[in-house]
């Protein structure tokens, strides 16, 4: 049987003996292990059995235990058999966001206000410290300064901190002055050199345009290619794999049975390598599961015999740093497809009962 050594196994043996005497005979002829591999059974609540007797199975699934004095009558007949559950470990592989999220209108207005306030409190700009007089850069600076109506800053609009209207430092709702996109355009326009080395102003058609920065939305976003990792750059992506085909197809996080020789994180790493290939640089964040999901066992209504064993899946969190999922024909886990999805997209893809179990490990926004 199990190879758990020491005190735990002694406890287990004692409890098993008591359970065998208590529980109905339906599990005596049931052998849960079809192969030679040993898997953990759910004996997590065994050691606290004496002080915290188990509730009926429906409550037990939520991890609720009551003290003996709180319990009106002990009901040993309804204590669930550990053999009714198998323990699995899964991994929720995530890709961290690569970009900061977009600012809210309030944040835009706040930052603009702070800049204008700072304008009133700092020393005035001294161009002579930065530009040698009558050089091309100095002429360029003066040309651009004139176009900004003498405001040295490029991103605060027309605002004079020492003028008569210095108090008027806020803009109307919906004003483009505080829009980050507008600020970026202003800065890029300012980066363009407009005076030649000879000090002559360059005509608009001869100016060298500044290279545009990369957009927030990538090509994969436009094509809605959910297999690529360079999509939804400001959100966390989660890996889901497809098992089975046709009607039985099911999107889920990679998971597999925990063997007796393995800890949860080791199983998670093994399962990930089996399901998604080894061409990834991943890192499992801690050894503590971030979510768990319980599938209740099924019993035969007439005889009360166990028909299908329940499952307890413990999910660990992983990060992908580089690489991509590679699926081969002879995939060990029977994975046929994969997707990198955001939190919102996962809601309709993974099973309806799984989503509430793992929801709390997702990013907040």
């Amino acid at each position, binding site marked *: 049987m199990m190879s758990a050594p020491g005190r735990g196994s002694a406890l287990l043996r004692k409890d098993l003996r008591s359970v065998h005497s208590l529980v109905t005979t339906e599990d005596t002829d049931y052998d849960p292990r079809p192969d030679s591999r040993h898997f953990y059974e759910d004996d997590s609540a065994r050691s606290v059995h004496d002080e915290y007797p188990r509730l009926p199975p429906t409550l037990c699934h939520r991890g609720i235990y009551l003290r003996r004095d709180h319990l009106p009558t002990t009901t040993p007949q309804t204590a669930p058999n550990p053999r009714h559950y198998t323990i699995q470990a899964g991994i929720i592989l995530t890709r961290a966001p690569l970009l900061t999220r977009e600012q809210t209108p309030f944040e835009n207005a706040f930052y603009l206000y702070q*800049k204008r306030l700072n304008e009133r409190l*700092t020393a005035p700009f001294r*161009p002579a410290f930065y530009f040698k007089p009558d050089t091309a850069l100095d002429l360029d600076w003066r040309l651009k300064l004139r176009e900004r109506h003498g405001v040295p800053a*490029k991103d605060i609009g027309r605002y004079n901190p020492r003028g008569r209207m210095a108090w008027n430092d806020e803009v109307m709702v919906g004003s483009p002055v505080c829009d980050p996109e507008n*600020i970026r355009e202003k800065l*890029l326009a300012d980066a363009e050199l407009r005076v030649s080395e000879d000090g002559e102003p360059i005509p608009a058609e001869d100016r060298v345009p500044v290279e545009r920065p990369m957009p927030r939305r990538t090509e994969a976003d436009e094509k809605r290619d959910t297999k690529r990792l360079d999509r939804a750059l400001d959100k966390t992506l989660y890996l889901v794999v497809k098992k089975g085909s046709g009607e039985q197809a099911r999107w889920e996080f990679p998971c597999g049975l925990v063997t007796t020789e393995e800890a949860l994180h080791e199983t998670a790493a093994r399962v990930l390598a089996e399901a998604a290939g080894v061409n990834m*640089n991943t890192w499992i964040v801690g050894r503590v599961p971030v979510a768990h999901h319980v599938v209740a066992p099924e019993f035969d209504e007439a005889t009360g015999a166990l028909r299908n064993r329940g499952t307890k899946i413990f999910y660990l969190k992983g990060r992908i740093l*580089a690489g991509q999922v590679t699926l081969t024909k002879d995939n060990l886990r029977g994975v046929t497809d994969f997707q990198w999805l955001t939190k919102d997209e996962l809601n309709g893809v993974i099973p309806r009962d799984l989503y509430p179990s793992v929801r709390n490990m997702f990013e907040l926004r």
Partner: protein
Amino acid sequence: MGKLPSTLLRRPCLTGRLPTISPGFTHTPLAPLIPSPATTTITPLPTLRPTQVRHATFIPRHRRPYQFTQLVQLSDGSTFTVRTTSPQALYRSDKDSRNHILWNPSEASLRNVEVDEAGKLAAFRERYGTAWDLEGGAGKGAAPAAGDKDAAGKKGEAKDAAAPAQEEEQHDSLVDLISAFATVDNSVKGGMSAKAQAKLEKGKKK
């Protein structure tokens, strides 16, 4: 000025009521604040003290330099803004965390690949062995351009190069290492002062 609560509720003024404390007495019990009808003597107002009092100091605002908003563009095209004293509107970085091997350990294109088209590195290895190579260790790396004969010769040299490495390993502690270095090396020439040298030669002549 409106009627603020602070103006309505004033603290009781005790200046006219408190008795003056004469310096001759070490301990004077304070007279009751509300004078009883029996003792209705009014104490005189306290005189100004000669010592200086410092109520407040004007602290001028720190003078900070003028700051601009600058757009910083990383090597992969992503941008962010910073506040800086530089009037430059756009800053492009050539080398940053997006294209450096330290932050991208699995990026093969960033690895330092040896380019040896002229065969100079192979020639150096043929002559001096591979002990100078940073990666791979001594005697491990073999130059691809070298032939079988060269490789055989290299093996011998590599063994020689590997010998000091083994020697280093047998030093168990740091003390052993230091004492090993402190031993006098007889093969080193010199080490004698001119005076001692002259003395020695004088003795030889005799």
